[in-house]
């Protein structure tokens, strides 16, 4: 290993760097000033509810939208003022954004023909990419002769063939049915890993995000709420919004009472959640979240903390069963249990006890 290489190892240049990028449409704020860096070679997902600003963020990276403020850097180079085609990125659009009058091969090759490469080289590269995305033999077809999933693969091949260091994907799987979406997720991940370049993928589907992502950035209301690995976002979210959006969590809001070992979150009269050594002072509003699978529902308390509840709905889903229950003050909570582990079959209207381990409680101060 040379000195330069080891230096590069220690401080790698991010593939994409956003520094305070923002976008306003007149009085509408699509994205507030936002900064993030995407490590080279990673699969980065922008996840969030509709209208949150994901597409806006992605298009500013692509150069299809000019930010109203901030800078964009790709591989360390400032590209804020460069048009889309001068950036080392290529885009996979939502829906089947292919040239309808060209064959699959022509679609994939179009970007290369613009670069004046020799013909047979263009052809061989296009065919190679089609093979990579599993469409060998489809090169003579036209887009309308392909299924939705195949059309998205063509788009992917078209983006990959340009050998840019970043591929940007805007809801690439939104038009596909659930099963195909799942298969395509695995495939996207495999392709990204085998090609080794950076993917930035926009979606509002959390399962899709969890499947493909090395890292997820949650974007809502024009703001980057939180970012982290799928495990982090699921297991230890910091923000209340993250806990509400990712997974199946019960959120409880209240006021901190007491301190030290005595600290607890008072949610309502008779409903308190112990928060020993909570890092906040008395009287501060806070929230907690508990994953549905961390609750246990039984005729009597089976874990350290518990509350009496009334069962509202029971949904049998085969492997697991989801139960909606009501806490003493009427607040809803969601419990998910592997069906086999349930002590009895609950019915709506049953009285039971909801219990959980203290470690399952996650505190959110914002």
């Amino acid at each position, binding site marked *: 290993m040379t000195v330069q290489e080891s230096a590069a190892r220690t401080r790698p240049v991010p593939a994409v760097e956003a520094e305070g990028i923002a976008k306003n449409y007149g009085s509408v704020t699509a994205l507030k000033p936002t900064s993030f860096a995407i490590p080279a070679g990673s699969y980065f997902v922008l996840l969030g509810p509709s209208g949150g600003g994901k597409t806006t963020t992605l298009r500013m990276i692509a150069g299809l939208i000019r930010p109203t403020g901030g800078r964009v850097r790709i591989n360390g180079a400032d590209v804020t003022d460069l*048009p889309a*085609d001068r950036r080392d990125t*290529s885009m996979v659009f939502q829906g089947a*954004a292919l040239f309808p*009058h060209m064959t699959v091969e022509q679609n994939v090759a179009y970007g290369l023909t*613009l670069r004046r490469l020799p013909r047979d080289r263009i052809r061989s590269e296009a065919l190679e990419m089609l093979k990579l995305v599993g469409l060998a033999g489809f090169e003579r077809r036209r887009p309308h002769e392909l299924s939705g999933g195949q059309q998205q693969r063509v788009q992917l091949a078209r983006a990959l063939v*340009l050998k840019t260091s970043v591929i940007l994907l805007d809801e690439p799987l939104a038009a596909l049915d659930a099963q195909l979406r799942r298969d395509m997720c695995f495939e996207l991940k495999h392709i990204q890993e085998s090609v080794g370049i950076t993917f930035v993928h926009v979606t509002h589907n959390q399962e899709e995000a969890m499947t493909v992502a090395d890292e997820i950035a949650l974007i809502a209301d024009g703001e980057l709420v939180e970012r982290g690995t799928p495990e982090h976002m699921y297991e230890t979210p910091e923000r209340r919004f993250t806990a509400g959006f990712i997974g199946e969590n019960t959120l409880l809001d209240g006021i901190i009472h007491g301190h030290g070992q005595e600290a607890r979150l008072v949610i309502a009269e008779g409903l308190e959640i112990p928060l020993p050594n909570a890092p906040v002072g008395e009287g501060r509003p806070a929230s907690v979240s508990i994953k549905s699978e961390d609750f246990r529902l039984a005729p009597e308390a089976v874990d350290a903390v518990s509350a009496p509840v009334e069962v509202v709905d029971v949904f049998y889903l085969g492997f697991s069963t989801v139960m909606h229950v009501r806490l003493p003050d009427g607040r809803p909570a969601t419990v998910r249990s592997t069906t086999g582990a349930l002590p009895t079959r609950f019915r709506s209207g049953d009285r039971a006890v909801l219990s959980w381990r203290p470690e399952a409680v996650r505190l959110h101060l914002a």
Partner: protein
Amino acid sequence: MKASGPGGAGRGILWRRLVADDGPGRLLFYLPAVFMTVFFLVPLGLTLVWSVFERTMFWMKPGFTLAAYGDFFLSGRIDSFLNSVQSGLATVALAFALGFPIAVFVRRSLPPAAQHKAVLLFILPFMISEVIRLFALRPVLGRNGIINDALIGSGLIDAPLDWLIFTPTGVVIGEVLSFLPFMVFCGFLAMEGVPDYVFELCSDLGSGVVRTFVRVIVPLAAPGIFAATLFIFVNSLGLFLVPDLLGGPGAANAGTLVVNAISALDFPLAMAIAAVMVAMMIVLLLIGHRLFDITRILQPYR
């Protein structure tokens, strides 16, 4: 859903019975076919038949002779005809070069609500009689017309341009101006076949304006462009008003030739010229259909 009253339901049943597969009303569906036969196919057939009839003093009599075709192909008329084909092609090219970019601009750069108003603006001139519109070009294009005045006034030229009117160029200018709205309108409709994403796609791939236009927009809008082109070409051959009003002495197109033949009571000749024009149009249609499925005019790529 709205509940239909007893009267509505009754009418519905009656109507359905009338137009059922075996009901008498099914004949209704043949009306368009009858209409087309009476008003298009029969005259077309008669044109062909009469073109080989023998000429008499005031009318013609049944027979078979190619004299009329000889009169057309072996005289100065064919030169006039070919000249008008030439200026027709020039008109088509200019109308496309000017009109289609306008259509693209309207589709791409105006907000949706303004688009239809803009197109309406371009169609408005069609509401004015063609004669008036063409006549009004005289004070614009003439020796002392607005254009010459402006050019001389601005010092760009010393003497008035005298080829703007009463010349073959004048004919082309007149035709372009009268058919431009049609190209804009058809182009606007044709752009329906060009999805919005292709523009973003092209800018992401780095396909320049010219290349995007030639390789993407034109192929996608081709059926509509072809329809407009054909309409303009055929009309520029057939509408004798333009050469009459703007072409100067001796200017003629196929339409003029037909009118002259009719005034000379040479009906077979008039029919022969018309038949040649129809044949030419059919050939053009077939070529167009081979190049790009014309049925796509009504149904763009999905």
